[in-house]
């Protein structure tokens, strides 16, 4: 089963997100992550869903999404070249001894330390899912206290060739 990144444009109004989520639960499709926000057009929200499934399940998901009246566009980015990012905040245990090593790891991943206390630091990182997961693995030995992830957001890559 492959992971698919599906970008959905939907009327930015009352209940529209509910229809999308309700469709996934009613038909037994799984959601790995979901992120929602307005798009360049205020009246349209962009929903990015990452879902796992066999090809025919994903095909059904896309057809069913297209049937929703409030949905204006559905693109399975998996078959296109696309850019994706996820943002995470990680609160890690940090003592005087470990703090400098944590700061080095943070730097290697080009992330930022956004909060610090005598016992912990909080790191903000963005990147692809793989990068974010790699950083979490590196931080685990120090003791992760809390993680908040936005889920994947993605856009189709506009330019693919050489000039």
């Amino acid at each position, binding site marked *: 089963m492959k992971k698919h990144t599906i970008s959905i444009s*939907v*009327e930015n109004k*009352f*209940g529209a997100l*509910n*229809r999308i989520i*309700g*469709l996934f639960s*009613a038909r037994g499709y799984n959601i790995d992550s979901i992120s929602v926000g307005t798009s360049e057009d205020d009246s349209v929200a962009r929903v990015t869903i990452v879902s796992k499934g066999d090809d*025919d399940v994903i*095909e*059904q998901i896309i*057809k*069913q999404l*297209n*049937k*929703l*009246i*409030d*949905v*204006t566009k559905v693109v399975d980015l998996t078959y296109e070249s696309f850019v994706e990012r996820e943002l995470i905040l990680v609160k890690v245990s940090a003592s005087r001894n470990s703090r400098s090593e944590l700061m080095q790891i943070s730097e290697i991943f080009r992330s930022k330390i956004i909060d610090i206390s005598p016992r912990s630091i909080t790191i903000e990182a963005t990147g692809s899912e793989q990068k974010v997961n790699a950083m979490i693995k590196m931080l685990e030995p120090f003791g992760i206290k809390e993680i908040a992830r936005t889920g994947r957001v993605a856009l189709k890559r506009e330019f693919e060739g050489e000039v």
Partner: protein
Amino acid sequence: MSTNEVTGAEILVKSLMEENVEYIFGYPGGAVIGVYDAMHDMSHIQHILTRHEQGAVHAAEGYAKATGKVGVVVVTSGPGATNTVTGIADAYMDSVPIVVFTGQVATHLIGNDAFQEADIIGITRSITKHNFLVKEVKDLAWTIKAAFHIAATGRPGPVVVDMPKDVMASKTAFVYPKEIKMRGYHPFYFGHMGQINKAVEIINASKKPVLYVGGGVVNSNASNELFNLAKKLNAPVAMTLMGLGAFPGDDELSLGMLGMHGTWYSNKAVDECDCLVAIGSRFDDRVTGNPAHFSPQSRKVHIDIDPAAISKNVKVDVPIVGDVRHVLERLTPLVQPLETAEWWEQINDWKKEHPLRYENGPEIRAQYVIEKIYELTKGEAVVTSDVGQNQMWTAQFYKFKNPRSNITSGGLGTMGFSFPASVGAAFGVKDRPVFSINGDGGIQMNIQELTTAVGNNLPIKIVILDNGYLGMVRQWQDLFYKKRYTHVSLGTNPDFAKIAEAFGAVGFTSDKSGEVVPILKEALKVKDRPVLIDFRTTEEDNVWPMIPSGGTFAQIMDYPKSVSELRMASSHTEAAK
């Protein structure tokens, strides 16, 4: 405030007139009392007061299925709205165009657990084609126009419009939009010519074709186009439960129904064919059994207006997304008459060897009742059926001649559907008799609508095939659960004929097959009120043939097999799962 401003309630009534609505099936209550006030002086539209909101929705469905027009329901908030849920789900599964207007508590009370508040938008989200909560009166006319447009176009379906009490009391100018644009809704009517050409190649190469047709043919009014295609190809036509009537059941090309309780020969033909053309049908599990073994030798063409119906259950070679009528208009001129003489010889042998059959005797057989109704009405009545054995026997023995005359709950399988649906159908169809076929179980689920039928002088013939059991469940317990009958006996049934008389209808009861025809003839003479006939039929009768759920054609059980042999077959089926 300008003087030509009107209330939301008045906008609703005016909008329904713009939509040429003839009937509203409804039930008043606190949240819609303003709406009902606006109906007081309503002309051109008749409000039919049912005796339960579920009855109102099924009546609207029956009306919509019989006429092809949009059925309209108005109910109050809370329990009024939740009582419509079964009917809405039913309409969703069977693609029936209805618009259900539900009252709602005032906007400032929404979410407060107010009296008679229910989140009907949330409740019906997954069983409607779309639903709307109207938050401001200025949006009301547009919303109503959109609701009718969505319900009736593309693959039809139910739409709910939730109307808060204060919105319906507020005023605005009334302008009914002429057309409506929604950037997320563009039904696709015209099939892709490239796909149609590919389908033509497959069809023209076929020696053993079968047309497998469903309710989509009825919804797109494509019966004539289907008839032309079948006649040009000289191809057999197998119909789904919803497709019965799309093609004349008495035509020589008809194989009757296919699927779990379809004819032996239609299922055999589908099993052996080299080309299956699915037209407005959706490869439902009651048709396919085990989808991996369904029609294994055929190349498949699938014509459907709903892209999501394509390759959902069975992979096809050539999908064509589009309205059946438009697609057939383009496809039929391109196909060649096929050399099907050998195929027909084979099919006619099967028909002779494995006909639908039953043995008549002094007891009333349900099959006999349906056959006699068919003969007396020449296949031209509107017949609603309920769910279970009565439905399957109706499908097998009533050879529907015309589309929109077979009205049944196919997808959801709603017991209690038949009778209220016949009430709606009787408003829509005045020139042909309307029969409502029921079991003794289902009739008790919406029997209150006898009041509605009597009050409106509807000459519906209500037939109860009364075997004292929830027959289909009993049949499964008989075949698959070692005859351990558990809560399927309806031994304490009331005297249905007396109930009918108490309501002001005519009642008959009989348990003798010799009385069936005379009683039916008597019933057909009654023109000013409903007639209820309680036929006490053979108690433990089973519907044959039967392909067990999830089974294949190889497992079909035909009529003459002994019961012990059938149990063997079914235990193999259960073990195979």
